[in-house]
């Protein structure tokens, strides 16, 4: 059996014969999975919400612009019209553009199954390329995002050879909160496409916390991000390239997050 959300990965697998399920179940009619709702001051985003719906949700985009960055990078406008963040996570590609900012945001994945519901950190959801911790019969229902504190900002940047229509060679998400003096009080950093799954990199976050996100902190961030990479050589990039550019992307994403945090009340 295969679950069909946006279908932008599943249909390609069907066509190539990599997937040949006896049954395809379309989950898009489940209302909870299609809703963007305020929940306990934070957001609950249905796993079946399309990228375009998320991008067009202005209030969400104000709170979590980094997550919207990720959604924007997923394929063309056409693909975004169908693709969902939930599908992006469940497909478990190490290069998934939607995932690092969810990890950096500290998002929880809400899972429903025969044993009831459970919530797990998005960082733990994918267990390797194409593999997730979903047990048979389980379904990813939604993402839970915490209430946003003032002066917070997040950003996701990826590197691709073309400006659009590519799979991330490296992706970096930075989520940070500033105190009243502009000092970074909290930070989370996540990297995509540099290991078997998207990574949460506490050492990179530590480089920012307590700093004003100045040049020295950014250099430490960059070094920590590069150091955390465990990439492979493949048709999309070399190890060497990924390690170097991971630091660059993290640094640039941090600057965007910083600027957004400054604007966010």
């Amino acid at each position, binding site marked *: 059996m295969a679950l*069909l959300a*946006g*279908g*932008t990965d599943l*249909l*390609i697998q*069907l*066509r190539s014969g990599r997937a040949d399920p006896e049954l*395809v179940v*379309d989950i*898009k009619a489940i209302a909870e999975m299609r809703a963007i709702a305020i929940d306990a001051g934070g957001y609950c985003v249905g796993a079946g919400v*399309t990228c*375009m719906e998320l991008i067009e949700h202005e209030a969400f985009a104000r709170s979590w612009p980094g997550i919207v960055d990720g959604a924007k990078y997923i*394929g*063309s*406008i*056409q*693909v975004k*019209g*169908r693709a969902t963040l939930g599908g992006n996570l469940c497909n478990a590609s190490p290069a998934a553009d939607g995932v690092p900012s969810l990890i950096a945001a500290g998002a929880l994945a809400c899972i429903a199954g025969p044993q009831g519901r459970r919530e797990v950190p998005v960082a733990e959801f994918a267990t390797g390329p194409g593999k997730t911790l979903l047990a048979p019969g389980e379904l990813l229902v939604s993402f839970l995002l915490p209430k946003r504190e003032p002066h917070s900002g997040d950003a996701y940047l990826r590197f691709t050879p073309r*400006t*659009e*229509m590519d799979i991330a060679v490296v992706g970096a998400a930075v989520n940070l909160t500033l105190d009243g003096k502009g000092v970074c009080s909290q930070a989370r950093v996540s990297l995509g496409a540099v290991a078997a799954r998207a990574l949460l990199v506490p050492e990179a976050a530590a480089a920012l916390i307590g700093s004003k996100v100045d040049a020295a902190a950014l250099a430490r961030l960059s070094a920590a991000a590069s150091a955390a990479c465990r990439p492979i050589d493949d048709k999309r990039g070399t190890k060497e390239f990924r390690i170097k550019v991971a630091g660059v992307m993290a640094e640039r994403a941090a600057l965007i997050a910083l600027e957004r945090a400054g604007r966010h009340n």
Partner: protein
Amino acid sequence: MTRNHVSTTVNGDQVEFLCETQQTLLEALRDELQLTGTKEGCGTGDCGACSVMVDGRLVCSCLMLAVEAEGKAIETIEGMAKGEKLHPLQKKFIEHAALQCGICTPGILIAARSLLTRNPDPTESEVRFWLAGNLCRCTGYHKIIDAVLDAAREMRGA
């Protein structure tokens, strides 16, 4: 193989067709409904030649199952001109020499119309990024961008 019955709306007309479960909307449009204006360039959502509108959303019809069309409103290139009157984008594409071989043209027109519906006054860069999912190998895009911007101007009445 059991075939599924699907009833849907295409360019305003109520239609029905039978399809295999794994058949895509693109295949149903072309093979079951004989609407061959929508093209297949890749079958993997990477070229945009199969772009159509589904309930007002721009999508690749190669990445959607035909059975999902049940109850939806689908718009294809065949419905773009109104009677004898070409859509301004269609007219401008011809005038600006924005097409050569024409295989990407239906998809690009559908995509460009969806942009202008949302944003009647896009910048050149906005047009380029919106159309990034539509590959064209003949034109280098230059004249396509000109045609879209000029059509937008005309549609705004500017």
